[in-house]
């Protein structure tokens, strides 16, 4: 009797779907709960706190948009931090993309020892950023550092690197490049390059294209979705720069490496201005969203998807 009822229920497609849906929800529920508790919850809390004065030890006091107004119109460091962070992004991202693509192209040639080079390129990514930053502070030391020593050997007087207002930021860009060029970005480029059909290169060769023309007209268009992916992630990661300035320069000298996330960190954890720091974080989120949106809008002009219809271009 029971078996017959079960069989009837199992026969019902609606019942089966419902049961599968329930089971599906049950399976994802731990992740969903985690998302709600540890991501959505804090997000909503920070949204509220950005409208409040809150120093952790006193209850939040609602102040409306005061924190946002303070950031935009009263805090002199806010715009300086935006400017220094933007400069860092502008320097790091194009250089990083070009260098990662260059490394991927080299590895894609299939020369002997490719696996060794891939490992070597990837090694800096595995080095903790703090250890890397400390190592670089020694390399950049103007008197006894390795870099200036090498420059002196070829007759160049090196700059004061991390202690110079002009050179501190480029120094951090160099550290950033060292830590990211051979990392996941290079691996993604490599995957993109290996996905370019050989027949396209063969056709180009028949048409008399040289290596540069093949790269310009075949490789680049074919890996443009990969390029977009790396560009979007690269810009977001560069905007979020923090650890290297925290360790190597402490935001200095004279605010030259006082990045936006460093500003948020100080406001939140050093000066206990959690409400203001939350507002800064939301402004930062909007800036990153705007950049990402812009990139996707502009991508229509230069990103080509294989099999895409002409009229969509």
């Amino acid at each position: 009797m029971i078996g017959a009822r079960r069989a009837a229920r199992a026969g019902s497609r609606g019942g089966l779907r419902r049961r599968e849906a329930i089971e599906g929800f049950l399976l994802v529920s731990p992740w969903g709960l985690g998302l709600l508790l540890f991501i959505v919850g804090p997000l909503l809390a920070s949204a509220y706190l950005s409208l409040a004065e809150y120093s952790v030890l006193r209850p939040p006091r609602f102040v409306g948009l005061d924190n946002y107004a303070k950031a935009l119109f009263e805090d002199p460091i806010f715009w300086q931090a935006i400017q220094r962070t933007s400069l860092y992004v502008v320097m790091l991202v194009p250089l990083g993309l070009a260098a990662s693509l260059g490394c991927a192209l080299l590895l894609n040639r299939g020369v002997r020892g490719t696996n060794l080079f891939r490992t070597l390129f990837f090694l800096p990514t595995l080095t903790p950023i703090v250890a890397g930053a400390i190592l670089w502070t020694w390399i950049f030391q103007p008197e006894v550092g390795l870099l200036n020593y090498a420059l002196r050997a070829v007759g160049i007087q090196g700059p004061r690197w991390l202690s110079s207002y002009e050179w501190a930021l480029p120094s951090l860009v160099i550290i950033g490049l060292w830590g990211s060029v051979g990392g996941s970005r290079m691996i993604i480029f490599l995957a993109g390059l290996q996905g370019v059909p050989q027949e396209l290169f063969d056709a180009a060769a028949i048409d008399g294209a040289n290596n540069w023309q093949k790269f310009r007209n075949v490789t680049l268009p074919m890996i443009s979705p990969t390029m977009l992916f790396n560009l979007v992630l690269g810009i977001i990661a560069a905007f979020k720069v923090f650890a290297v300035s925290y360790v190597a320069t402490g935001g200095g000298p004279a605010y030259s490496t006082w990045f936006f996330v460093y500003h948020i960190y100080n406001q939140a954890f050093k000066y206990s201005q959690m409400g203001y720091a939350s507002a800064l974080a939301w402004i930062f989120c909007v800036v990153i969203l705007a950049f990402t949106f812009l990139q996707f809008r502009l991508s229509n002009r230069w990103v080509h998807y294989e099999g895409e219809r002409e009229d969509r271009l």
Partner: protein
Amino acid sequence: MPRSFGRRALLRWTGAATLAAVATPIVAACASAPPTAAPTAVGSAASGAAATKPATGGTPQAAAPATGGATSQLRLNIRSGPYNDAWAKVGDLFKQKFPSVELKWEPFPASELTQKLETMAAGNTIGDLYFINTFQMDHQRFGALGIAKALDDYAKKDAIDWSQWFKVAVDQLYANGKLYGMLDGASPGRAGLYYSVEMFQEAGIPEPDESWTLDKLAEVGQKLSKDGKFGFRPLAGSAPELLIWVRAFGGDIYSKDGKKATVNTPEAKAGLTWIYDGMYKTKFMPLPDQAKDGFSTLFAAKKLAMHNSGTWDANASNATKVKWNIVPLPKGPTGIRGSMAEANTICVTSQSKNPDMAWEFAKLDASKEGGIFHLDLGVTPGGRPDVYNDSKVQEKYFWMKQWAKIWEGALPFNGPANYRGSEASDTMQQGFDALWIGQAKPDGDIFDKVNAAVQKVLDKPA
């Protein structure tokens, strides 16, 4: 016929069990959320009103030795490393007196200590005692916020004789007129002139003494600066470091009430210009990056003859293996020796479940024995004349005789009235960085700019 327990049933039960396991504590937590911690409103420092509500729940109990009965526990939130070791030694003394009280050590790295304490206080999980310091005003801020328990009643009950400690150090224990801790250790700031005996002997120059002025320091410093060697390295980064030079020229970095920034006064300009000239004109001081890792590398390599610092650098100097000595930092042209008393404090938390025992521990930590333990472990010694002047101590640690002298003229602490010491210090440091890296000159408007920026911090609410 037995019912089979299939895959789907397993999934169903597992899901239900997971949900129940996750939901139960959440519901329970929501239903029985503990009341928010004791922190009370910060009194308006600007008005000077003692608005902070004393956190004491009543008169302290007699601190009878906890012999027999239930074992109680003290949780100690301490800075890790030798500070923790010093407290552990104090703990041994404490255990002799109160054997049934269990001590639970919870050390945190110095860079995280303040944030940890603040977070734990907000979450009602802070221990019974914590370590903090005054130089960036965290002690005073924590007191005013109610993280620390006001100890006036305890001090009164035990008739504490405050003359046991340096007065300029004891003064820092108070916030809004209430006592919020005991002295774990104290120093008169970065007011010691450490020097390499060997470098002076090799150059045939008489060693520094108390009669020296900053002019003399500059003169000798220049003589010692040759062949890649530097005569003197000043500490000139954070506010307490800059203050030394400003005070030596008769000024200060804040007004006495802590409400006005005063780094653009003629005295402040003169003090900081003296450093600038030493770096860029007479060049007897290294640039900041030439001694980025502190004095020790240059000192050990015999490339640095003198540097100024606090008591804590005696052990670092020993580690360089250089024969060194110390005298009070020379006086400025006004006849003032730049200094500022700074203190490390031990505080009983307002959330302590055992404040009477915590008070007993704090007293032991602030005792002469506790002060010497600190010295033995290489951290800031107890802020007591009987530690600094003890003949055995001076015999064992030769530099303590000089520090005892420096204490005699130690100038009082000064900080922002709104307790934003860290923020004001960062603003000052980043602002004056432009001078030390040669980005700005002391004849420009840098002093007014930095002063205005610091004033903005001082104008913020407490």
